[in-house]
């Protein structure tokens, strides 16, 4: 492989990884944008999504097989289920805490995250489950760069979901209401917007996007595990911050950027795989210190 080939291949790798980060980061950013809550449980909902997808698929596969059709069907079903779970969590755990001190709601979110991951741990005994599907290894070769059809479909699906979300937020009444609530909740209430309903909708969309990423990851990588949400949750948060937390295009951009950074970072001498995480956490910290609003975020003005 020439250097050019390597870089091209890493570009492809980074885009695929970045699409997953972006999908998960979107939920983070939407929830943060609307109620200023850092939802620690978001990564775990990604994990729950993968497990539910696995469950649904194992029920459905005798009927429709475990190839693309099966995966897509189970994806839609578990996206709905996880979306509802997200709404439930919001109602039970976060709604009563909205006026509580920030520390309390953060700890609550942490507790929810631990309940989800340790709940699955108890259920599965900590075992890795093989998410076996019928996806092939065939693909297209561009010179020395090889991309499977599966990877293309994944990136395509992620792009589709993200554009659908973008249109929803910018072209529909619900999307407008979401953006309005992000700016001033009380004013929205006065204007007759069902604030709670819109918040629930935001949770639904955000978590179901995470779930979709979870199922795709499960099917693509081939194994699922109770702890799979932790790392990606952190990375997606980093992505959201890079892009500017609260901004939807920012989350997409941040996700792709982080994916690329990690891929190319592997090639940088002295960083390599050993220091990779130090590298990405370092970026996160530097960014928060020097430009906490990220690339596309707005500066906040806090009033007395």
């Amino acid at each position, binding site marked *: 492989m020439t250097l050019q080939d390597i870089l091209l291949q890493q570009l492809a790798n980074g885009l695929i990884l970045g699409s997953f980060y972006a999908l998960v980061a979107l939920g983070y950013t939407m929830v943060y944008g609307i109620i200023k809550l850092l939802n620690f449980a978001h990564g775990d909902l990604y994990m729950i999504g993968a497990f539910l997808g696995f469950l649904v698929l194992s029920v459905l596969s005798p009927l429709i097989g475990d190839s693309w059709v099966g995966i897509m069907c189970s994806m839609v079903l578990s996206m709905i289920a996880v979306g509802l779970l997200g709404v439930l969590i919001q109602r039970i*755990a976060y709604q009563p805490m909205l006026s509580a*001190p920030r520390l309390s709601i953060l700890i*609550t979110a*942490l*507790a929810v995250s*631990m309940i989800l991951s340790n709940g699955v741990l108890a259920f599965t005994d900590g075992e890795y489950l093989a998410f076996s599907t019928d996806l092939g290894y065939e693909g297209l070769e561009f010179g020395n760069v090889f991309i499977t059809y599966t990877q293309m479909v994944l990136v395509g699906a992620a792009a589709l979901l993200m554009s659908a979300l973008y249109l929803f937020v910018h072209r529909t009444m619900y999307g407008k209401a979401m953006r309005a609530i992000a700016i001033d909740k009380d004013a929205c209430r006065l204007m007759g917007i069902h604030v709670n309903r819109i918040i629930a909708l935001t949770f639904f969309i955000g978590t179901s996007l995470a779930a979709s990423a979870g199922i795709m990851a499960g099917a693509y990588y081939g194994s699922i595990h109770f702890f799979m949400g*932790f790392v990606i949750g952190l990375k997606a948060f980093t992505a959201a911050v890079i892009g500017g937390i609260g901004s939807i295009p920012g989350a997409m951009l941040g996700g792709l950027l982080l994916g690329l950074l990690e891929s190319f970072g592997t090639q940088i001498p002295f960083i390599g795989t050993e220091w990779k*995480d130090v590298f990405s956490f370092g970026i996160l910290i530097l960014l928060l210190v020097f430009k906490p609003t990220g690339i596309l975020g707005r500066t906040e003005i806090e009033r007395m």
Partner: protein
Amino acid sequence: MDRLDSAAPGNGDVAGTGGPLRWLESQKNRLIVLTFLAGLAMFLPLISNNYVLEVMTNVWFYVMLCLGLNIVVGYAGLLDLGYAAFFAVGAYTTGILTSHFGVNFWLTIPAAVLFSICAGVIIGGPTLRLRSDYLAIVTLGFGEIVRIIARNLEITGGASGLIGIEKPSLFGFEISQISHFYYVFLLLACLACFVSYRLQHSRLGRAWQYVREDEDAAEAMGIDRVAIKLYAYVIGAIFGGVAGCFFAAKMTAISPETFMFQQSVLILLGVVLGGMGKIPGVIIGAFALVLFPEVFRDLGSSRILVFAIVMLVIMLYRPEGIWPEKKT
């Protein structure tokens, strides 16, 4: 100051009074119970076996860690998800200095304090200006960075860690038995309680509370909130660092796996379960943390699940924790 101290427990006291055990409300009766418990703690090694001592030593160890984190989370109201990093700094300082450089154990403590302060300033300095939720993530990131550094460097023994750390001796008396360590950690826990108490009821302790309650108003009163938070951070770091030194000496072997994110969460659980910001609450939390898996062995695997559910319920229905609030 003394008047202030005695005034609070005097007219305040336990929520939900009444019932046959009302006598505990008086300062004197509380003192009796406290004396009894202190006596029990003092003489435990005479009446129990090594297993109980080992477990109780672990309890005192977590009491110290939880009290340290309590200064950051409970007093100053900052969510720190990377507290294990400070604990790691202390443990590795002792480990490296004793095993690579042959430094006496007791001399490693001031070094660990120094390094903990440095770590606290490095982590806190640039990040304490951030919003509290960002801070949580940054501390988490720092915790991971410290662990990865420990894993990758040669001097820290890489992923296998350090082994054969010398047990300390004091005036020729070697601290090697579990009963010796029991007293060492009991002493440390008492010291931690004492320091926590004194700090809480001081100018500094009040300043933490002001900043926790209303940062802007505190700043308007001339309190430098960044400096005050950094103070909390650094003192918390020192607690963790010193605890780490003794941990290394007791275990004689340390590895990066001990300082994973889960360890930080465990310590945080101890702080939150019993009641943030209150010393007795934090002690109860530390007890629950260590004793639960020992007593309910069958539930051991789901201990974090049980704790997390309790934590959620506490946050929703009793944010001040199990330990009752004083009323004024």
